[in-house]
């Protein structure tokens, strides 16, 4: 990481009146040319972060840097950042062409140059031939592309996208996910994408920031966050998880459900109480005598690619299983899983502590995960 970050938040807090803060002491860095996703439930502060970056609101405290320049008080119209708004906010009194040309006209660009750029931007988003359409004559997906064209035509260094896909149906949504990702790679600029859809975040991002209640819970690549969630919230929010209370006996040995299991986690105090995560797809169905755990099947759902089984062990813990194999309701089955499938989480661990712990045992080197 020799390159300077393009955006840096330093202990940024945003508070309205005397209400509890909406963003609470948030710090992060974003690098040039990467696809970032802000992921979190409704009302957690995702849009607020975007508005702080674009300059539409000011931070209550803390510092915001753009390429090492403090921009706390730089107004929105002076920042090299453009936004695709949650509701697109396309101007209803202008047609598609004029919407896209808006930013260029403000910069007093020559007409023929504007024309060239607008047409290029529209080609970029596959909207050639729609120049003279009114906004209300465009479909949801087309509007979204107009909004993107209107933003990228200004050649911003950072593009902010606030849940641009949430209004689209599933098919178009998946299509646009590919298109956006490809667009980001072609443009080579930084994208900050907001969503509350975890699958979308996993599919598109270089890095995900998982946010809850005004705090960043965890930052990392989709793989990192999926495989090594820092706490119960992240584990639950990113994909389905089986989370169960346990005890870390010693390094590489964890106890839960009354049994001890080999695992790959370390750096805990002996007998420390922990939470254990096992992803539903990491559980394999076998016969009871070969299983590490035995459970009784309660419900079976067909989910297209796999079956989703809900089952209970003898202590009443629920286990969700994703499997291509089917099992009878009421059947006793065995569950098998690899030591790597177990992920152990410490209670109340901060992101820094978590990263430090992971790094400390990366350097042991020999006993590695994956």
């Amino acid at each position, binding site marked *: 990481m020799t390159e300077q970050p393009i955006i840096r938040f330093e202990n940024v807090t945003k508070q309205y009146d005397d209400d509890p803060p909406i963003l609470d002491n948030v710090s992060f860095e974003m690098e040039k040319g990467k696809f970032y996703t802000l992921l979190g439930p409704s009302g957690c502060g995702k849009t607020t972060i975007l508005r702080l970056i*674009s*300059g*539409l609101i000011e931070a209550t405290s803390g510092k915001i840097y753009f390429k090492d320049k403090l921009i706390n008080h730089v*107004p*929105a*119209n*002076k920042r090299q*950042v*453009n*936004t695709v*708004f*949650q*509701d697109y*906010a*396309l*101007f*209803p*009194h202008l047609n598609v062409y004029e919407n896209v040309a*808006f*930013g260029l006209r*403000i*910069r007093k660009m020559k007409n023929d140059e504007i024309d060239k750029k607008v047409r290029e931007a529209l080609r970029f988003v596959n909207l050639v031939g729609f120049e003279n359409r*009114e*906004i*209300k004559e465009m479909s949801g997906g087309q509007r979204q592309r107009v909004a993107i064209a*209107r*933003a990228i035509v*200004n050649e911003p260094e950072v593009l902010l996208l606030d849940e641009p896909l949430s209004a689209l149906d599933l098919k178009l949504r998946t299509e646009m996910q590919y298109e956006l990702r490809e667009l980001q790679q072609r443009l080579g600029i930084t994208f900050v994408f907001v969503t509350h859809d975890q699958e979308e975040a996993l599919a598109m991002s270089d890095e995900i920031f998982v946010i809850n209640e005004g705090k960043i819970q965890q930052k990392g690549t989709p793989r990192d966050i999926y495989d090594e969630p820092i706490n119960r919230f992240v584990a639950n929010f990113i994909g389905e998880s089986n989370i169960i209370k346990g005890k870390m006996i010693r390094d590489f040995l964890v106890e839960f459900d009354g049994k001890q299991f080999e695992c790959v986690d370390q750096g805990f105090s002996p007998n420390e109480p922990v939470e254990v995560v096992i992803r539903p797809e990491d559980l394999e169905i076998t016969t009871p005598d070969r299983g590490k755990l035995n459970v009784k099947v309660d419900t079976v759902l067909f989910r297209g690619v796999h079956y989703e089984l809900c089952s209970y062990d003898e202590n009443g813990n629920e286990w969700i299983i994703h499997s291509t194999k089917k099992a009878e309701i009421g059947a006793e089955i065995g569950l098998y899983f690899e030591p790597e499938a177990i992920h152990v989480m410490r209670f109340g661990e901060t992101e820094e502590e978590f990263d430090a712990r992971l790094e400390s045992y990366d350097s042991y080197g020999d006993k590695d995960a994956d």
Partner: protein
Amino acid sequence: MIMPILLIVYYSFLDIHGNFTLANYQKFFTPVYLKMTLSSFWYALLITAVSLLVAYPTAFLLTRTKYKQLWLLLIILPSWINLLLKAYSFIGIFGTYGFANALLEVFGIGKKQILFTDFSFIFVSVYIFIPFMILPIFNALDKLNPSFIDASRDLGASGWTTFRRVIFPLTFDGVKSGCQVVFIPALSLFMLTRLIAGNRVITLGTAVEQHFLVTQDWGMGSTIAVFLIISMVIIMLLTGNKKRGGVG
């Protein structure tokens, strides 16, 4: 609704003795009446323009205040007071011994003839009509989706450019209906012209009143009224909403 209009059209073809004639229309196209028409339009335009210039910023500020509905009510309230009452109170204020002149004296300017001037006429008319201008503009501004303003700022527009390119065009329908509800009654004002302008300003409205109540020439009065109605319809058609793209 249509009956009185038909009646007026019928009367406009009668002379003072009740015989059928086209003379009224001939008379209307003489310089005296044409000048009157012109002056009516001129004053109505002036009143509308001044109202708009004051009303738009007022409405804009209103949408940004905390208790905007309350403020709006306070502004609308005076329009419920009888017009005559308001006119007479202004005579009090603007009269030779009124408050305005007292004020001028304090500033060492000395007494001035305020009542019966163009200024006082326009001032009082604007005062009376302005709530009707503020209301539709306020509604349009209030309905305006704030993310359009955000988008404009985001795309690099300053506050003023945002106003010119986004806010004003998107609230233009409100401006149009405001102008309509001010311009049309302003065209046919008559009481104020007499009370405040002291008959110095003679508009078509005054002329209609004159003919009906003083000279009893109902035919000529009706003819002028017909022209007033025609111009109002034309104005409505010109400024009418062609139901273009919705705002919001």
